[in-house]
């Protein structure tokens, strides 16, 4: 069986909206470098493959489609790609994957930001591409018309479906541009050749000349090819349209199965969309851990009570022992999942429980490594370092 990968998703005080009120949380530190540095160090102590850092241009809200006026939940967040940059120099092995929105941002900027993160981390960068455009996001930029009014009722209307499908098509173009720009400097383009007075071999620099429905980008990038060549691209996906995006453009997809039958069905659909392409599939799980099942459930229920509602999540919620979580992960792995991405209910508590309890259990079962096998994230995930897509072009120009 393939190597099992274990990642964690970091967001605010944890994935429960009342997490910040737990005595184990650090609610005063959420906007400090120390908080994020410590979380990364903890994840690295557990030899986890990578962390993702969530992000959104719109403020958190209990209402999925608009800002709310609650004052009892965490509101406010920093730019995830910059948190990633800030914590990268202090770490050595773990992958770092910030979320980046594709709807209002420039692919040229994103490409160089992530390439730079790859330089800073010496080859441990990735990106979680997020399709934006919902809620009040368009008004923050004022560049594009506001989307059709969204609610759970309108989600299935043709107008909204078309809107969403277009945003995902745009995201596919966006990743294409980001990837081409990463390749726009071939490896070895920098020659520092004193004899010919040339710093670069310009035949190894390429315009990307992308022209699509939403944007055109000329290139090349201003940033040389990053250490991994292609940093790792990930997508969170809940249905066919995003599965297709992941299949076309991502290295890793995070999916949200809620039971074994669903897990098998999602995996089959994603694999079919991918049509043999090397796409790794990870299941997302929200986790609350405890010494026994009852205390883990009690932890979650206490937070539900504080929040005034039972936790709602797109991903399956597991409150139980590390043993039970290990069973569940093993089951997913046997189904053919490449890994899991755990969303700790409370930070740093449930992250520490993962590294202290879950990881040793998985290791005892022969499912998890006891060291980092590589120095880059691609290496970690068993992905080759690809040559630039433009390499053959320059070799062939003489013909």
């Amino acid at each position, binding site marked *: 069986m393939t190597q099992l990968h274990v990642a964690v998703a970091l967001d605010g005080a944890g994935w429960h909206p009342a997490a910040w009120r737990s005595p184990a949380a650090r609610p005063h530190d959420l906007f400090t470098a120390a908080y994020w540095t410590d979380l990364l160090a903890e994840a690295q102590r557990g030899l986890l493959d990578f962390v993702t850092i969530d992000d959104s241009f719109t403020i958190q809200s209990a209402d999925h489609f608009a800002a709310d006026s609650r004052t009892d939940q965490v509101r406010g967040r920093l730019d995830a790609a910059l948190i990633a*940059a800030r914590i990268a*120099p202090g770490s050595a092995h773990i992958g770092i994957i910030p979320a980046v929105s594709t709807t209002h941002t420039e692919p040229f900027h994103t490409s160089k930001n992530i390439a730079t993160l790859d330089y800073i981390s010496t080859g441990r960068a990735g990106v979680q591409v997020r399709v934006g455009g919902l809620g009040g996001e368009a008004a923050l*930029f004022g560049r594009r018309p506001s989307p059709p009014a969204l609610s759970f009722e309108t989600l299935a209307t043709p107008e909204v479906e078309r809107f969403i499908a277009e945003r995902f098509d745009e995201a596919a173009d966006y990743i294409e541009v980001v990837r081409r720009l990463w390749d726009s400097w071939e490896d070895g383009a920098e020659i520092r050749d004193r004899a010919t007075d040339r710093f670069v071999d310009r035949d190894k*620099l390429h315009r990307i000349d992308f022209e699509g429905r939403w944007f055109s980008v000329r290139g090349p990038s201003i940033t040389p090819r990053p250490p991994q060549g292609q940093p790792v691209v990930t997508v969170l996906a809940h249905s066919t349209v995003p599965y297709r995006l992941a299949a076309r453009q991502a290295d890793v997809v995070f999916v949200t199965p809620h039971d074994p039958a669903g897990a098998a069905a999602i995996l089959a659909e994603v694999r079919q969309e991918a049509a043999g392409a090397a796409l790794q599939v990870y299941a997302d799980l929200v986790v609350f851990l405890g010494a026994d099942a009852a205390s883990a459930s009690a932890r979650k229920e206490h937070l539900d009570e504080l929040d005034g509602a039972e936790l709602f999540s797109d991903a399956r919620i597991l409150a139980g022992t590390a043993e039970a979580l290990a069973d569940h992960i093993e089951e997913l792995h046997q189904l053919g999942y490449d890994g899991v991405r755990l969303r700790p209910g409370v930070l740093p508590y449930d992250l520490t429980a993962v590294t202290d309890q879950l990881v040793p259990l998985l290791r005892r079962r022969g499912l998890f490594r006891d060291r980092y096998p590589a120095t880059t994230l691609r290496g970690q995930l068993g992905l080759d370092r690809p040559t630039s897509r433009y390499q053959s072009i320059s070799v062939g120009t003489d013909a």
Partner: protein
Amino acid sequence: MTRPRKQIILGAYLGGVNHQTVWSDPAAGSQIEFASFQHAAQTAERGKFDFFFLAEGLALRERLGQIFDQDVIGRPDNITVLTALAAVTSHLGLIATVNATFNEPYELARQLATVDHLSGGRAGWNIVTSSDAFTGGNFRRGGFLKREDRYTRAEEFLAVARRLWDSWSADDVLADTGSGQFLRRPDAGEFAFSGKQFDISGRFTVPRSPQGHPVILQAGVSAEGREFAAGGGPDAIFSPFHTLAEAQPFYRDIQERSARHGRPAGSTKVLPGAAFVLGDSEADAVERHREIALAQISGRGAQILLETVWNRDLSGYDPDGPLPDVDPDPTGPLVIQGRARIHQDALDTVSKWRALAASNGFSLRQLAVHVFGHTEFVGTPTQVADRLDAFVQNDGSDGFIIGSHLTPTGLDEFVDKVVPLLQERGSLRTDYDGTTLRDNLGIPAYTDRSSLTAA
């Protein structure tokens, strides 16, 4: 009456993508590896510099449709690398040059506020306004701005950013587990702005950062640029004037404009870029400078530098021969694309250069070395310290953004040899006395002047 000695502001500038950065020197290191940035920033902090500074160019330059290959190219994203430097420094300000034309205020204000949080209050933004269509080809916005609209956009951009930075008060995050209240008020971060360039509204996600507003620099010295720097709110202007003769009138002009806008004296700091060459004796320094200038400007490099003004293909002119006898072609299609244009009047510039070449007997390359290979501060450490100090005390500027021809170790000898002399004179701090970039520069917290005058 003697006035108190001015404290010299020092910024460190890591070599960019231009002829000044010599890559052919065996000691030249990588311009892109993080270790290079880390070395330079830590050196600057060792020298108690105020800040570290990075320039920006958003398209690889081209000459006659082909990418420049003789200069150093290949840069990181400024804000990203500066944020990482916050991890390996503790007091040094971190100033990113970022273009106001090819970015959106919501996103950039968010990034800058984030850097300010993650660095404990050390963020700064150098606003540049280059806006050519060539660079626009890399962006979904495409297009470009007319020259006269650049500062309109920059000014409004900054106004929007300030509104976003003010959308959270310092005490909005309570995180009070006892009462269960995270926010003090339900609408923290709410904003709306409606102007000619931007019409946006919503809730900003970043709580108020340690400095409230990052420090703002501006680079651009046209009348509009000066007016923007003096009146529109930047804390400092990055100036291209290196001789006292040019720098003093510029300095006075900025102070006068600033006073006209009702700002207290010294509100707009003036900071020219400056390079140095040290030697054990003056003759030694001059000789070293000559070698460096020749390494910076090869024969081919000289032709290309003159092409930036002539706007003609000069590859047929012998670098060791006389200046090209043709006139410049300022209105023709651009020979060099993607370079901030500083020499505005080509005909005037060329006639001055012709006179200079005639009176000194300069060849094409010698003229290029004279004009573009000029280094302001050449001498023994004592001489360089004297001249830097005199330049500031005589109101040529408030300090310098210091660069070197060598990445990443060029600054080392400046910090080892010149900094202690400036400290001995009492013109440079011997230790940091605050923690934020505003503390370093002695710039008070930003207050909205429009509301002050209205009151």
